[in-house]
């Protein structure tokens, strides 16, 4: 088969995954999917190898590949025969690869009575039962507390919905309407995927399609190898998550040699009786993301790159826990830290390509009352980069969801937003400063329960190349006039009138602040992104206010900078 046809089939397959995403989004019920795009769609080979994926959330990236393979293996082991027009449902994180809220659906592609591949999707469901509204809480000790566990089961049998299973699921969730609507959307998405693949086969032939798929894996493998061919390095780093009074270490050693990449998490903290554990699928996803971002953002994301990767994550650690360790926060926070620790290590080999640490948390805010539940994540500062400041007020690493407009929140929930702004001086000082964190202040208009899941409150996002750390997150409840600090993982009851203040971390700085262009500092002072005080203390630049404007005291600055 000629090379152009291979490319055409590759491209067509990618667009089919994209189209599955469109159908899922169009037909989905809940805002998590429609607005926040918290889902992914994929096409996999008969072995469960990832061929193409339309992703919107990086944490789904590697986990989809692992999840499907685990599911196929499970079905074989349990002697469950998968038939044409069956749909398998699974959310067990130890099989599907993320956390219970992410429900994966899988459908075989049958051609001439043979499975030639699978289509799959994964979508975040607003609630799957468990202790807390939204099924995410820092106060649980076992997976069973987090929600309903669905092992690989047939949601659709021979094209017909399995009502018994559906009723079991909807009987265990808080918003059954959403669940039903979104599951139907996932099924519709799979159906279109199968239909389109069969059309592709009709046009090019089944042998040609599978051959092109295999060639696309070979291509990715070779592409990645060519990118690392001249690299020979061993880099190590350790970074931390925070839990109660403890720091939870993630150790990482990466070895790139002879066209292979070995990532070893040996030495990482043992698994916890707390939901900070990240299942192996999340670890793979985070590792894949970090490597793609640093080595080549255009690296195709399919199974081919996993042939080059060897990821060692010892069992019963927080990067590869054993059931029934709880995992909901691992998906959202530990994934962030895995990326950070890999960046930290890779900085030694790629100092021009790796930024300082970004805010490093999804900054999850979950508020629920009688009959309502609100969930959002808040961005922060991006790490300073070689040649560029970090971006202010964005999501970083493993998340990229949209915020919820203030006027939407206030129209739909008993919450009033008092402030939404950038945090002055929260960006780590540097030749290229870290991005600023965000301040978001909520006033409760009814009694409710607050869960906060955040990090980088004790350990700040690190700077690199003599850059300073970004500011830590600071979160408070203001109750009866008292400002009470919150830890990063807290759940508490609030009364009407209480105020919650979330200050997300800034990004670390890149390069010495003493080398930052004085004009850039003046601009940032004028924009109140850097204060006069910080300009003096951190950057050694004296700026004074004069006639309602800011000017540099160049004489004093030269003294300060020793020029």
């Amino acid at each position, binding site marked *: 088969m000629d090379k152009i046809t291979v490319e055409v089939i590759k491209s067509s397959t990618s667009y089919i995954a*994209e189209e599955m995403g469109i159908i899922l989004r*169009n037909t989905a019920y809940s805002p998590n999917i429609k607005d926040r795009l918290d889902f992914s769609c994929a096409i996999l080979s008969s072995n469960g190898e990832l061929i193409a994926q339309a992703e919107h959330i990086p944490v789904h990236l590697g986990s989809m590949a692992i999840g499907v393979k685990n599911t196929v293996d499970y079905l074989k082991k349990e002697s469950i025969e998968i038939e044409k027009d069956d749909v398998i449902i699974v959310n067990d994180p130890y099989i599907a690869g993320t956390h219970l809220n992410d429900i994966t659906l899988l459908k075989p592609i049958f051609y001439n009575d043979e499975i030639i591949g699978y289509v799959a999707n994964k979508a975040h469901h607003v609630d799957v039962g468990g202790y807390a509204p939204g099924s995410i809480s820092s106060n649980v000790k076992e997976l069973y507390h987090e929600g309903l566990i669905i092992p690989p089961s047939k949601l659709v049998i021979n094209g017909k919905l399995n009502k018994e299973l559906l009723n079991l699921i909807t009987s265990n969730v808080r918003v059954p309407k959403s669940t039903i609507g979104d599951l139907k959307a996932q099924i519709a998405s799979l159906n279109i995927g199968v239909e389109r693949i069969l059309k592709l086969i009709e046009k090019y032939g089944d042998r040609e399609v599978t051959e092109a798929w295999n060639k696309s894996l070979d291509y990715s493998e070779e592409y990645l190898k060519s990118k690392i061919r001249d690299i020979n390095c061993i880099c190590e780093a350790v970074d931390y998550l925070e839990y109660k009074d403890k720091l939870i270490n993630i150790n990482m050693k990466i070895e790139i040699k002879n066209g292979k990449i070995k990532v070893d998490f040996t030495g990482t903290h043992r698994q916890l009786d707390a939901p900070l554990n990240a299942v192996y699928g999340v670890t793979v996803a985070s590792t894949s993301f970090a490597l793609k971002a640093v080595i080549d953002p255009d690296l195709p994301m399919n199974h081919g790159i996993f042939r080059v990767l060897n990821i060692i994550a010892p069992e019963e650690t927080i990067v590869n826990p054993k059931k029934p360790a709880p995992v909901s926060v691992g998906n959202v926070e530990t994934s962030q830290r895995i990326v950070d620790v890999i960046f930290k290590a890779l900085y030694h080999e790629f100092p021009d390509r790796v930024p300082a640490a970004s805010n490093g948390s999804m900054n999850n805010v979950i508020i629920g009352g009688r009959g309502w539940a609100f969930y959002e994540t808040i961005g922060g500062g991006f790490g300073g980069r070689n040649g560029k400041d970090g971006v202010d*007020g964005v*999501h970083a690493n493993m998340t990229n969801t949209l915020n919820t407009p*203030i006027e*939407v929140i206030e*129209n739909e929930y008993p919450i009033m937003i008092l402030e*939404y702004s950038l945090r002055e001086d929260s960006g780590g000082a540097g030749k290229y400063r870290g991005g600023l964190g965000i301040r978001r202040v909520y006033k409760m208009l009814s009694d409710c329960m607050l869960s906060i899941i955040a990090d980088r409150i004790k350990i700040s996002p690190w700077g690199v190349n003599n850059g300073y750390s970004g500011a830590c997150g600071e979160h408070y409840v203001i109750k009866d006039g008292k400002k009470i600090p919150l830890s990063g993982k807290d759940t508490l009851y609030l009364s009407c009138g209480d105020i919650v203040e979330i200050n997300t971390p800034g990004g670390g700085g890149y390069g010495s602040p003493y080398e930052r262009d004085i004009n850039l500092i003046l601009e940032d002072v*004028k924009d109140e992104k850097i204060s006069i005080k910080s300009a003096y203390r951190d950057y050694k630049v004296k700026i004074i206010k004069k006639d309602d404007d800011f000017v540099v005291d160049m004489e004093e600055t030269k003294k300060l900078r020793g020029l």
Partner: protein
Amino acid sequence: MVMGYRVGIDIGGTFTDLVYFDEYSKEFHVVKVPTTPKSPDVGAINAIETAKIEFDKINILIHATTLGTNMFLGQEHLNPPKIALITTKGFKDVIEIGRQRRPKLYDLFFEKPKPLIKRRDRYEVEERIDANGNIITPLNEEELQKIAEIIKKKDYEVVVISFLHSYKNPIHEKKAREIIKNLCSNVDVITSYEINPEYKEYERTSTTVINAYLKPLVSNYLKNFIDSLKNKGFNGKFYVMQSSGGISNIKYATERPAAFIESGPAAGAIAVAYFSKILNDNKVIGFDMGGTTAKASTIINNSPLVTNEYEVGGEVHAGRLIKGSGYPVRFPFIDLAEVSAGGGTIAWVDEGNALRVGPISAGADPGPVCYGKGNDKPTITDANLILGRLGEKLSGGLLKLRKDLAEKAISKLAEKIGESVEEIAYGIIRLANTTMAKALRIVTVERGYDPRDFVMYVFGGAGPLHGVELAEEMEISSILIPPSCGVFSALGLLLADCRVDKAKSILKDIDEVDEEEIENIFIELIEEGLKEVEGFEEIKIVKQIDVRYKGQSYELTIPWTGDLKELADNFHKKHETVYKFSSLEEDIELVNARVTIIGLLTKPEIKCYEVKEYKPKPESYRKVYFSSGWEETAIYNRDKLKPGAIFEGPAVVEEYDSTIVIPPDYTAFVDKYGCLRIER
């Protein structure tokens, strides 16, 4: 009306297209001249003079321009005004944080769009309206007075006021404007409730800021242009094409410049809609491919699909805008799918030795390799030339294409990949077509339609080279090439009506409102809108409501018939059609009321000719490469094909500024309007 000319001028990035209708002879004519980017009106006047039209005989002149877009592309000579923004206390950064999403997942060096107003130019004032329109905190007028003094002192040209929930209760915005205006009488003050009285604060503020950003530039430009026209004797009516596909008079065009950011492609969609009506095609995809991008509109029952939100300067992925990559503008825009593929798109070999097409473009300068202006990277145009689909002369002979240069450039790729030159050239076309077809398919599906049900109208400088193969990829069996397909977009300027769109948020459950309340909202919007369509004899009013299931965030726009039950029933039905499910027991929420007021213009008629079937004689033959290999292919001159001409592929039809490729197994037929219909 005294007989004369109707003139449409479409100023694109490279060429300025003029289409005029001679009311004496009842014929259309076209002229193409280079665009003069620094003073686009100069190019426009050049076009009129080149067409030998007497200025005092122009009855109507309708204008489309990319001037607004060029400002966001950072063109050097376009200087933004000095703008201040006043927001509710605590919220001045909403305009900068946006939706907190980074446009590129894996790019560690990504950039968000730069805030159009620097933080130092954003001011906050104590005030608060809640979601029900109640005043929580009265406007702090003393504080505002101080801000007004700063504004005066710092010589701001424009002030934007955007308070939370002003769509619900604009009283604070009104008062703030009054206070600013009292002290700074020469400052233009623009309020968000006036520009976009819809909820969602970031998008409302962004829309208002972009209007403020564009207003001085566009006002000056239009004023200068009209003055130049008048100095040459023009005394007719002047209109501007909006992104919605409607035209607007000069007064309201200057008030809402953001409304015509995408006016060129909008005109193209209007032309498609017009032809779909006279040809009785109920579902049409209009495909326009130029030098750098391909765009497609969807026309259902002779009306283009319209979206109410767009991102200026945004990037595209798989045919759709990437949310967060541009600046949101909430005005009606004809809903366009877009792909970074055009004649100038560059083909290359990646580090894995795979052939890639795009997204980088050589544009029109230096342009494709075969233009001989110094580019050595092969483009789609070069591939079409190698395959024999393009002849060696272009645009009526204005440009000669250098096949030797194209061959040399493509052979470099061929050596790397290990295939022949023609295989690589064909590969470039196949990859480009696959990408475009798949993206267009996805966008059509996203809007709830099946592409197989559509006819595809193909136009633009590069569109007809690709249209038939594209349609085949999309399983569309009928393709139509309209007359003057290279400048077809400009024709749409002459076929448009005056259009005003007004919207207002309701945000109430259907059970909470009564029909009288809804009618009153519409009466208010209609009164506002009618002021902008003065002077039209015939007026059409369309009333619609954005409806959704409670808890959902997506709305469907449903016609308002005056009956709430009917509204609900129609919503359930449409939801079933678009989203494959409906929930009859679910609560329904009314989100926005929308009015479209159309001032109908008498339009020039496309001439209808007698059809006599005949087999035309080719001008010549040459070898052209198709999926079946090199084929001896008949070459026709479009101008010589009369209605009734019927012939089979393989064929190439050449005309003034476009080339139509008809593969083997297709039949082409010229209809009574001079359209070329191509079917299998």
